[in-house]
């Protein structure tokens, strides 16, 4: 193996404090979000096509088009427009939606809670499934003996679980959602196919089960494969033999000695996973007709609603960047190695 730069310096030096790391990581995240938002804004400007003209329609009078252009801020050069838009955006003002006639920020926040709810419920489910299935598969894969007959069972379990996880990785969540609707809602009639909204405007838990499961299953497959590879590698470490020699059972070895170290790569990809789940929730909500961000953004796309879609994209970028920074900082509290990154 060619020498790869290790993440930790070879010479012993002081571990960066969690606060320092949080500040550095937070600053980087803010910068990333600003760049992403700027890219989103500039893309709408740089691409061919006159947004104002398409919005107003070809038979609109020139005055109407001109007014729309001024309202959208399309009459100033792109850099000026960008600075103005960013200055407004950091104060939480993203303009007014052309399609709905409401402030974009308000629209986004009210609809985003659906996606937030879905993702917040799907993450623990996916993580839990991935941890259990991935660990069982890893024990089977590395063929730890000492459990007698159970070794065979575990190996067989790996042969079943690993392909299933590969399959999960290869299915889009909205298709999983449709299959679940057919099996659970249409055939078994256990849960509603379309999520009903309760009196308070909130979703009922019965309506949330299928979307959350559909969202979590593919992610659980991807995460589970990662856990499996990571734990199986951890089980090869010499310290595992030492702990086993002291008489620790397989379960104790895995849970107390291997998992803490093996979780590092899993947790460091959690930011990406969250972004994937958020994206997935935009599509899955369409299957169940949930009033989420995906629905209004699609309506915005149909209507060429430039402020709404640009604002939505910038908001999503901010959410993605901030959550992954938060995951990193939280994990840095427990694992000092993270703070060197």
């Amino acid at each position, binding site marked *: 193996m060619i020498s790869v730069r290790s993440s930790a310096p070879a010479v012993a030096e002081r571990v960066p404090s969690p606060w320092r790391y949080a500040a550095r990581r937070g600053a980087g995240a803010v*910068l*990333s979000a600003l760049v992403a938002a700027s*890219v*989103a804004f500039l893309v709408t400007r740089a691409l061919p096509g006159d947004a104002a003209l398409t919005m107003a329609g070809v038979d609109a009078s020139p005055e109407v088009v001109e007014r729309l252009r001024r309202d959208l801020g399309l009459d100033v050069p792109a850099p000026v427009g960008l600075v103005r838009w960013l200055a407004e955006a950091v104060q939480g003002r993203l303009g007014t939606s052309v399609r709905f006639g409401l402030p974009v920020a308000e629209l986004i926040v009210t609809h985003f809670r659906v996606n937030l709810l879905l993702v917040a419920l799907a993450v623990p489910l996916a993580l839990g499934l991935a941890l259990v299935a991935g660990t069982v598969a890893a024990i089977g894969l590395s063929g730890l003996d000492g459990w007698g007959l159970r070794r065979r069972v575990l190996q067989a379990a790996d042969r079943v679980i690993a392909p299933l996880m590969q399959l999960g990785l290869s*299915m889009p969540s909205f298709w999983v959602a449709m299959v679940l609707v057919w099996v659970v809602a249409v055939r078994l009639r256990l849960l509603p196919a379309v999520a009903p909204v309760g009196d308070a405007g909130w979703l009922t838990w019965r309506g949330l089960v299928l979307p959350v499961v559909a969202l979590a299953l593919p992610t659980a497959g991807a995460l589970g494969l990662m856990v499996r590879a990571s734990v199986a590698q951890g089980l090869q470490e010499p310290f595992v033999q030492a702990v086993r020699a002291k008489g620790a059972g397989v379960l104790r070895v895995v849970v107390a000695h291997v998992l803490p170290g093996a979780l590092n790569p899993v947790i460091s990809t959690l930011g990406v996973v969250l972004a994937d789940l958020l*994206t997935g929730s935009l599509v899955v909500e*369409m299957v169940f007709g949930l009033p989420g961000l995906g629905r209004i953004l699609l309506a*915005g796309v149909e209507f060429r609603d*430039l402020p709404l879609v640009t604002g939505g994209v910038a908001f999503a970028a901010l959410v993605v960047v901030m959550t992954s920074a938060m995951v990193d900082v939280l994990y840095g509290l427990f694992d000092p190695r993270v703070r060197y990154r």
Partner: protein
Amino acid sequence: MACLTREYGTAEGRRLVADGRTRLPPIPVGLVAWPIRMASLPSMHPGGTPGATGRRRAPLGALVGVMVLVAMGLGALWPGLDPYAMDLTARLTGPSAGHWLGTDRFGRDLLARTLVASRYSLAIALAAVGTAATAGTTLGLLAGRGGAVGEILSRLVDALMALPGVLVAMLLAVVMGPSPITVGVAIAVGLVPGYFRVSRGLALALREAPYVEAAYAAGASWWHVARWHLLPGMARPLAAHSAASAAVALLADAGLSYLGLGLQPPTPSWGLLLKEAQQAIGLSPWPALVPGAFLAAAALAFNAIASALQSGR
């Protein structure tokens, strides 16, 4: 010494050109042929799993994967498929002798529709992967030089990662309108950071390799080193990453088509077929099951090929 170094470079160059084996085909062919050929060479720097040195498993999964993809390609190009012919006497039926995999709500043959759809879906996904591979690897090699350029590029790509593909597609669709190009570009934008990370990491690692230092010492330019010493060393991991990216691209294409941001009906694509199927899900599962199964099979095939390439035969 100086003349010796100059001769090293030119002799090497002449030998490579005379050999013909190491020469890259023109770019469009190269995008497809190069990863395949490079992946078939024994890997110099396996990016595989560290523990996988001892036991070598036959890439059975990858073989099956290739067979599935070839069968799907042949099926897609089968002459005489008519995805629009309606058979109003057989609407929303299950598999039968006349319609092997059933029909949709207009009595159109699901197998024909799904096979024709796979043309569009596979083409869009693979075009996006090719574009992302070219752009991402070039940027990654540049960033692998280190220095300020590398730092700035890394920051930019980090920011790019914050833009989820669906949202990029919506953004593009607002301005350009929904089209396969919108979807393709959005998928490619989503895939660039992955290629960037893989190639940059490998470039940074290979930079310290003795033969790279030797090439620099012999007076080779950065471009020469990147093209003839770094890129061949990355072929295997990049090929594995491409296979995994193709699976991701297929899923993303289906999702975006499902949202109506890509191809428009009545042209079939996997995502559009699923969108149509959803309205009839209460009546018949076949319109949803057939395209979804094809999509999952194709993605699974690419994933199997990717994991075989990763672990090294």
